[in-house]
């Protein structure tokens, strides 16, 4: 591994020490503005924000990235378009976004170390890694009515019989763009851009009213 490869990009850990710095998730304003209805027994959808995770965009050839990821994180690149895979712990996921683009999500605080190790491993290969942790957030939706809620919101076919666990797509959500992923039988995830987060949240509360949507904070 050459120092020079590392030096040709600017490696910058933009994460602060969360103990000493006030930190606000993309939904911070929304909690204030729209509130968060508590989940009840009637709730057929429960929403949670998974805050401050590490989000990395990986660009490059599938083969080299696959090898590097296996070595660094013990996850292989998903083999098919529009799918994702997790590591054994289920805490780290890698999702196909395009033939040369993947979204890697890791626990908060890991992003920079992972980026550095991947860069070291990839060295002079043709690739790029971009930290976008501050620009997006991950929402989980859990419950039997999630597909119904999503059908009111996205144009993609989210019928559970056609959207197996491990599928993930970038698609139109109301008038925004989100990534929709299915991470379990009744568990779905949305990756939402920060600046659209309030809009998406308000849309979800509105569309979820008939399913008594609850929000866990």
């Amino acid at each position: 591994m050459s120092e020079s490869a590392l030096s040709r990009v600017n490696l910058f850990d933009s994460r602060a020490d969360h103990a000493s710095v006030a930190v606000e998730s993309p939904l911070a304003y929304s909690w204030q503005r729209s509130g968060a209805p508590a989940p009840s027994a009637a709730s057929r959808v429960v929403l949670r924000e998974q805050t401050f995770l590490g989000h990395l965009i990986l660009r490059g050839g599938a083969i080299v990235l696959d090898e590097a990821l296996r070595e660094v994180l013990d996850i292989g690149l998903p083999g098919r378009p529009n799918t994702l895979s997790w590591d054994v712990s289920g805490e780290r996921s890698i999702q196909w976004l395009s033939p040369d683009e993947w979204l890697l999500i890791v626990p908060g605080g890991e992003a920079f170390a992972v980026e550095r190790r991947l860069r070291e491993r990839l060295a002079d290969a043709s690739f790029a890694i971009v930290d976008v942790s501050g620009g997006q957030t991950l929402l989980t939706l859990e419950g039997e009515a999630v597909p119904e809620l999503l059908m009111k919101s996205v144009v993609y076919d989210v019928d559970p019989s056609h959207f197996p666990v491990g599928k993930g797509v970038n698609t139109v959500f109301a008038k925004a763009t989100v990534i929709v992923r299915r991470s379990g039988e009744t568990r779905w995830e949305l990756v939402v851009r920060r600046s659209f987060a309030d809009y998406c949240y308000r849309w979800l509360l509105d569309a979820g009213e008939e399913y008594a949507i609850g929000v866990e904070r």
Partner: protein
Amino acid sequence: MFQIYCPYCEELREEEEFHPKGQAHIVRPANPEACSDEEWGDYLFFRDNPRGIHHELWVHAVGCRKFFNVTRHTVSYAILETYKIGEQPSVTAEPAVSESTTSTDDVRQGVRA
């Protein structure tokens, strides 16, 4: 509303995820400085406008963000094929001779994109 097969996502997706970007296979002249005003104007503004089979550039804007080509019938709106950038259509309106009898421009030889 169209349903378009994205050759990169390898599945049919809704038109709302895509943007049309005009005629496909328009190549920027390799040496713009050597073009006459007329040739440059042709490259900028003159497009095929067939009533029938047309090759178009689309982008899967809300999806994989890749550009690709679509062969589509402009009356029936049937999509006859989609294919990646750099590939050539397999469905064409006429034998792959030049479309217009007056097409003099060497500007648009070599359809690469």
